[in-house]
């Protein structure tokens, strides 16, 4: 099993090397190299990737950025930034040099809330994606590899969960665990963790289905048979032989569900059962902006634009990755 035979190098001086000399540029490319060459020419995907890197940096360096701009911390309330509106009702002030994105109805600086919101949003979306991929991967591997009753039980479980109205289920669990003292007798405490768990719980079924399908065909391939005849254990075959073949499709799929998870978190927060105040969440900000949006447009526009741009960037990158891995279904 060690080392693949390289014909060109094994047979120096014969006709084979003469052929190589005639075509010096031909070299075998690994699937990854091919993938990378295709992706490199996709300017849109690269721009999206750059935007995502910027967003991640912004999320990591949120305190630094807020300090550099000279904005107030995200949760600091103030009653200094209000102007009297037409009907004499105090309304928050709009964008100015002091508050780049204006202030919200509690007098908090919207710029720092939007920047910190990236942190919350990405943290939840990435963690939920990783968790649901991990669960879906293990369930799919077991169902597809062992088949028989293991597959029947796991697949029927997935069927039942897929029959649920997922947003409703998500709201139900999230509201039980996010409000008050948490759920399961205080085992799960309110916080970002709850939102991550809810999203993963709802999402892993799709991944399990995809992985199962792939494993069903991979387990019949020769390399699996070879490993089995060498006496490899089930665990070794599943995780060392089959798993590496699933990495590429899973990465593509993960990039495509990250934006879905960002939207899911925003939706839960919009409905008031996701991220809890005072933590800044774009979805929650949009919900709060609903009441004042005719007087304070900035409260809806900046969090909304941030959410839209982030989701868009991930969708663009996901499209690009998919094209690069599967050029037949190319977009152009």
């Amino acid at each position, binding site marked *: 099993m060690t080392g693949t035979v390289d014909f060109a190098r094994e047979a120096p001086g014969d006709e084979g090397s003469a052929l190589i000399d005639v075509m010096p540029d031909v070299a075998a490319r690994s699937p990854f190299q091919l993938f990378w060459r295709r992706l490199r020419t996709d300017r849109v995907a690269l721009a999206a990737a750059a935007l995502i890197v910027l967003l991640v940096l912004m999320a990591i360096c949120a305190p630094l950025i807020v300090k550099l701009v000279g904005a107030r911390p995200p949760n600091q309330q103030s009653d200094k930034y209000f102007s009297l509106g037409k009907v004499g009702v105090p309304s928050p002030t709009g964008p100015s040099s002091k508050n780049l994105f204006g202030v919200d109805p509690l007098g908090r600086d919207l710029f720092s809330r939007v920047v910190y919101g990236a942190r919350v949003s990405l943290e939840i979306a990435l963690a939920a994606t990783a968790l649901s991929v991990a669960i879906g991967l293990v369930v799919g591997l077991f169902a597809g590899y062992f088949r028989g009753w293991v597959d029947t039980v796991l697949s029927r479980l997935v*069927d*039942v969960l*897929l*029959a*649920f*109205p*997922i*947003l*409703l*289920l998500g*709201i*139900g*669990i999230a*509201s*039980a*665990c996010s*409000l*008050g003292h948490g*759920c*399961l007798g205080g085992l799960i405490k309110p916080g970002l963790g709850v939102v991550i768990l809810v999203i993963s719980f709802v999402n892993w079924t799709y991944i399990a289905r995809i992985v199962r399908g792939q494993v069903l065909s991979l387990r019949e391939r020769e390399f699996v048979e070879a490993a089995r005849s060498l006496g490899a254990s089930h665990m070794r075959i599943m995780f060392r032989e089959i798993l590496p073949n699933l990495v590429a499709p899973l990465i593509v799929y993960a990039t495509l569900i990250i*934006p879905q998870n960002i*939207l899911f978190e*925003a*939706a839960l927060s*919009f*409905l008031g*059962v996701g991220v809890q105040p005072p933590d800044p969440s774009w*979805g929650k900000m*949009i*919900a709060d*902006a*609903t009441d004042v*949006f*005719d007087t304070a*447009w900035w409260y*809806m526009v900046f969090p*909304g634009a941030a*959410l*839209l741009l982030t*989701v*868009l960037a991930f*969708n*663009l990158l996901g*499209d690009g990755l998919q094209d690069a891995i599967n050029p*037949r*279904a190319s*977009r*152009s």
Partner: protein
Amino acid sequence: MIRYIVRRLLWMVVLLFLVSAITFLIFYALPSADPAVLRAGRQPNTQLIAHIRHQLGLDRPWYVQYWHYIKRLVLHFDFGYSYQNLISVRRQIFERLPATISLTLGAAVLWIVVGMAVGTISAVYRGRLVDRVAMTGALVGISAPVYLLGLVGLYFFANDTGKIHVFPGSGSYTGLTVNPVKWFTSLLLPWIVLATTQAAIYARLLRANLIDTLSEDYIRTARAKGLSEPRVVIVHGVRSAITPVVTAAGLDVGILLGGAILTETVFNIPGVGHLAYESIKNSDLPMIQGTVLLGAFFIILLNLVVDVLYAFIDPRVRYA
């Protein structure tokens, strides 16, 4: 075919039982609030709470409660009574259903027509300016949350809060039987908003499939026979590329019929989604059960409808 449908319907009953049992367990284990305390009003005392708890049957173990629930459901099609206002769950759901059905079906017609038209044009003119503009728009469409689009729509076009007074604003929903004209105008903006996000998905889906299909040999044969280009694209191309679109439409309509929570919330439409959301906030278990079961019913039913439709769309599909 008939045997297949019967088998699927039986499996549907089993699935609904499992869904109801899981819902019961989840919300029994994780109530968001004590329903008895909520019922007791502003000045609850322990005696009153205990009394209410007994009245609602909450002092019995969960399997007894579940057994009573299922018995009433199967024998009398009775979903029980809301903890919140003691009104029949069935009545409340059926009162709310027309709004959700109006919203979903109206939007579905719009998004399927627009999505398929855009997808077809994009596939035929792939790589050209029309295609690029359409696909960029579609990408923005799938990236925008529906409530954001709804709020933006209201900001610009609502006749109370908007800049240009075009559509009735949030909370203007009127029943079809009350006033058909007002029903139509009040739902126009919600339809457009909901359909926008969905149409984007359908346009991308159909375009990708149609591009694949149009490169098949039989399409070249059809062209060689001298068929007109519209006939080749629509009769030979779209008809074969439509299968995944039907699947997606079935799933989406099924999910939305169980409650278009976000759209209903933004536009304040008194539909099932709104009802479900309120009942979760109030820990109103019978109502949650009812709405979750309704949602699951629609999802499973539409899945079956899609599978049966396949047999009509694609002559190669046969069920035994």
